[in-house]
């Protein structure tokens, strides 16, 4: 295996070539420390507030794709082959403000200003992605999603949303003008070498192919496998963990593939939540909505399906849904592969069925079929950028006679692992899918789960809602059901024609 010992990326349009990097040095600490680029702020160092938002461009099929990420939990060495844009890059060379910056000024979108550079970068990412043509205006839901990962404690957000709504009739900016040059530069940086850096005996390894990855994991079974670092990043920033060896999967293009197998979708472990949302969202609207509520944009752009499964969280953003759908997992060790039902992967709290030298390669998700009813619910204190108190995902299959032939009721946050409710499922089989069946399944949940009380919810609330969601699922299955979801209700009311946010705030 050929190893390249220089990390190469573009900071704006300037090539940076770095060696002997601390494997877990964050992008934020590098920007504020070595570079003294002080516009990017640390608000929380855990990827939850967005004050450190930067935009990263990477080459995907010959095109530079720009995405907002949290610099505070991203390791610098993972930027190999990318372009990094910070708030300092947005002003035009003549010193005038970029349209997203000017809109924020005109709409009074900053007060204390500390979160502002992060908002500006999220708005810039939205501007690049959505306001692609003259006349294009991002709708309010898209704006909310773009800004969900940025907390502001001063403004109440209305003026920032107003600023986003001003971003129409986009013209070419100086960053667009450099795009051909940047594209060529990034193409020139791409290679199939294993990138290696490190210091003080600690190593960072970034393979470019799945085979290289398999060899490296086998040779370094104690290594920490890192994808988007949306979880591992916190081990470093919050728990000051020292990671001796890091194997980064983000350069492995082959791991980020989505394959349509006809009756199933196969997602490589390196598929980001953003990419997964586009694919899985097509299977059912609830999957689209569930993935919309995984972290926020910065997290979804970095975090991966494989990482989400491999880290074995008892809550898990996607495992309850994938288990309900009957997904299977492919694990690889060297050249050996094995496949198992995803539900069997989670053995106990903090313990998964993954052997030394093995890694999650892909997950295969069956599509819904005739007679399948599906729903996914995420319950949290706050809708956006929050971790579930509980997550419930249900698949019920009705036979031609209207009786339940299959029930897969999967929950997160109810036990030490994502887990199916066996007793509740048993209560449903062979019966018509009516309110009585739902109530019986609800009653059976007490045999399935003894949840914990913590800061997200009490045990009593978790159990009560776990059951009520079965009632809701049943009610939604009935034709002509009344509105049952507050977010849907609000979105419909809003589409029916209301004022723009914060009428009259913009004094531009």
């Amino acid at each position, binding site marked *: 295996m050929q190893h390249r010992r220089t990390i190469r990326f573009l900071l704006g349009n300037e090539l940076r070539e770095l060696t002997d990097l601390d494997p877990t040095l964050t992008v934020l600490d590098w920007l504020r420390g070595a570079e003294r680029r002080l516009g990017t702020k640390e608000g929380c160092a855990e990827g939850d507030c967005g004050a450190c938002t930067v935009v990263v461009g990477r080459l995907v099929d010959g095109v530079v794709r720009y995405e907002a990420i949290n610099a505070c939990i991203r390791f610098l060495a993972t930027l190999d082959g990318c372009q990094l844009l910070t*708030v300092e890059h947005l002003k035009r060379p003549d010193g005038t403000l970029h349209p997203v910056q000017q809109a924020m000024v005109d709409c*009074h979108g900053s007060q204390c*200003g500390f979160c502002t*550079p992060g908002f500006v970068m999220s708005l810039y990412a939205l501007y690049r992605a959505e306001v692609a043509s003259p006349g294009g205006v991002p709708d309010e839901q898209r704006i909310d999603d773009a800004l969900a990962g940025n907390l502001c404690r001063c*403004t109440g957000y209305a003026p920032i949303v107003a600023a986003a709504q001003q971003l129409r009739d986009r013209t070419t900016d100086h960053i667009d003008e450099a795009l051909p040059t940047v594209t060529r530069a990034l193409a020139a940086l791409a290679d199939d070498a294993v990138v290696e850096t490190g210091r003080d005996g600690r190593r960072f390894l970034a393979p470019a192919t799945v085979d290289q990855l398999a060899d490296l994991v086998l040779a370094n079974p104690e290594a920490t496998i890192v994808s988007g670092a949306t979880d591992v990043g916190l081990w470093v920033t919050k728990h000051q963990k020292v990671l001796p060896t890091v194997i980064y999967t983000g350069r492995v293009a082959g791991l980020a593939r989505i394959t349509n197998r006809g009756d199933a979708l196969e997602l490589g472990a390196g598929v980001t939540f953003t990419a997964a949302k586009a694919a899985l969202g097509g299977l059912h609207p609830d999957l689209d909505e569930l993935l919309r509520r995984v972290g926020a944009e910065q997290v979804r752009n970095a975090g991966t399906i494989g990482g989400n499964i491999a880290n074995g969280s008892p809550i898990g953003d996607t495992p309850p849904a994938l288990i309900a759908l009957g997904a299977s997992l492919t694990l690889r060790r060297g050249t050996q592969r094995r496949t198992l039902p995803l539900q069997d992967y989670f053995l106990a709290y903090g313990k998964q069925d993954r052997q030394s030298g093995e890694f999650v390669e892909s997950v295969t998700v069956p599509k819904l079929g005739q007679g399948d009813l599906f729903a996914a619910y995420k319950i949290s204190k706050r809708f956006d950028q929050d*971790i579930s108190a509980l997550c419930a995902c249900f698949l019920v299959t009705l036979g031609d006679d209207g009786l339940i032939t299959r029930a897969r009721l999967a929950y997160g946050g109810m036990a030490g692992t994502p887990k199916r409710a066996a007793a509740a499922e048993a209560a449903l089989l062979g019966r018509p899918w009516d309110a009585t069946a739902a109530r019986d399944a609800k009653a059976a949940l007490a045999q399935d789960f003894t949840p914990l009380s913590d800061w997200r919810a009490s045990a009593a609330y978790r159990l009560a809602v776990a059951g009520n969601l079965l009632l809701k699922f049943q009610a939604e299955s009935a034709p002509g059901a009344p509105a049952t979801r507050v977010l849907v209700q609000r979105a419909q009311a809003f589409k029916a024609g209301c004022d723009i946010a914060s009428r009259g705030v913009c004094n531009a």
Partner: protein
Amino acid sequence: MPDKTPIDIPAASRRIDGAVHDSRRHESAHKHVSGEALYVDDIAEPAGLLHVQLGLASRAHARIRSMDLEAVRRAPGVVAVVTAADIPGDNDIGAGLRHDEPLFAEDVVQYHGHPLFAVAAETRDQARRAAQLAKVDYEDLPAVLDIAAARVTGTLVTAPMTLRLGDAEAALKAAPRTLSGRIKIGGQEHFYLESQIAMAIPGEDEDVLVHVSTQHPSEVQHIVAHVLDIPDGAVTVEVRRMGGGFGGKETQANLFAACVALVAKKTGRAAKLRPDRDDDIRITGKRHDFEVDYQVGFDDQGRILAADMLFAARCGFAADLSGPVTDRALFHADNCYFYGNARMASLPLKTNTVSNTAFRGFGGPQGMVAAERVVEEVAFATGLDPLDVRKVNFYGTTDRNVTPYHQTVEDNIIGPLVDELEEWSDYRARRQAIRAFNAANPYLKKGLALTPVKFGISFTFTPYNQGGALIHIYTDGSIHLNHGGTEMGQGLNTKVAQVVADEFQVDIGRIRITATTTGKVPNTSATAASSGSDINGKAAQNAARTLKARLVEFAAGHWNVPEDAVAFTAEGVRVGEQVLTFKEVVKAAYMGRISLSATGYYKTPKIHWDRAKGQGRPFLYYAYGAAVAEVTVDTLTGEYVVDQVDILHDCGDSLNPALDKGQVEGGFIQGMGWLTTEELWWDAQGRLRTHAPSTYKIPACGDRPRRFNVRLVQNSPNVEDTIHRSKAVGEPPLMLGISVLHALSDAVASVADHRICPRLDAPATPERVLTTIERLRAQAATGEGMA
């Protein structure tokens, strides 16, 4: 664009740029959006800067048997370790210096996270790692962790207060109807986006310069001097801006500033302390949580005849500002309502938790939440619309206008304000529509509520009601402005610059806004109590008028015209028949040896307060407002959304309507967050487990109301002679968020046909909403609590 050196071109007829009442952008807006605004962590670091980390206790209440810091000292990069034994002066950093709040715990740990020592190292990472190596041997002591436990022990951190109006006890006995209850109101983490931070640079002799994110530079100066045992004059404290404060940097910066000053003194090197977010949340005080017991007497028309309320507050281990905070809760336990007879008492309880502190509203919001619960109870008991009960109890303008603290409400506009909002928001029709929606939908229920706000403006600690300013004019005509207030995002510097620009009739770009520093304006008051522009605006106006008077006198003599022929206009300085540029006049005045520097001073008139008697006039005036909130609740999960909010708020003659609107909107969302998703959760060991944005949920962008209509009251100047007849706006709008709690309560009440008062406590998390719904359903089934 950055403000450039002013150019003197008298236009034919013009209005200055940035006059008072203009919606001028924030003075730093261009720097905020470009990342060029400097916060303390962005200041160029002096060579040899040490990074400091605090070592924290891992017990809620314990005696320290021994503390072994050898491993900390020997850790890589460590230069110094300091403990209480290293303090040359007093180990005391509390507001008011009551000797109840040490910089470092000495013998006894008082809360989980109590700082024990500090370690200074070459890098921040080294300091953080080293701090974890301490070995502390504790002897656990019984810990009092919540209000219920504290009520049993009964220990207070400061003296309670009682307000009495009429005879509440007799009036309760005589009232046709009475009821009683209790409301629990949660605390709140400030979650300023810029965490606490301080950097100290040692100078010669005893001097030390401290850059710190604080709302109260003079107190930091005083505390640092006190801890180091040096004169106040040796300490200079500088604040250019904060990344948010909200009250959380009024006293809470003392710890960080004193710590870095101590390290700087001990090592002779510059030192910086920026705690991690989790540490910041663990070791800084929060909004006080309260339990309020109330008893109310009323009649069938919903008119309140007597109220008796006891405000028990969790203050934490030390007094800090708990005295004035609990006082202000009592001052707002009437909100807009005349109680006739009242007894209001505070119970500032000591607990083994972090010492609670100032937070936007300063106890007022908790008082007001309790008042609104009382009104809600009366509405359910009488079957009247809560809005009608509110209106029938509003203070009068000529009678029924004396508060429980015996101040007469002289500027009452709540009646017409609420009438206007009721009509504009279409309250009555929407209420009918919502009832129809609820009748048709078994799962989702809507709720609607209108709640008013009356908030008293002035520090109740009378000496704080003073301000100072300093203006220099340079010979190129540029103006250097300094005042005692601090900028935390509220736009204070913009407003004060507008005042000065308006006095001189020069474009605001001519005025250079400078960092607050104790070296320029001394003995400042905290930028708190919404008082920033009232006090500092007047002080700066006063300084400008002093300079103007000198320039007028000089110009009259120099150009030989009467003084009344000299005027500052947007075209320039009129001197008789000619119009001179500001620069020409200033230059001539310099040549004529006229001083071009002046201080300004202001003290709030009319106010006085006798705490022992519970009588006086603590407030110069009141700010008013009202909000209508509409919500939709999922009765199977307790989840909810805020669909629409309509706000009408009183800023008098606003100094800057755009900035004021920003305060109204932001304050509302912050108040809504406090009462909905923001929940502080301690475990049985007294550890705060919601200490980061991953677990403590302030409102996100998507939580804002989809329809959010905000208007400022028009043509309603302050009746008091405030700066350009404006009103303070920092705190009052936070309490507009109470409308959301009541809208949720209205939706919840629908499950029992609006016949049982839901008694929905705060924060109304989805869990608390669902729990309340299920309790109401059970009560409705048995008929318990039905009106």
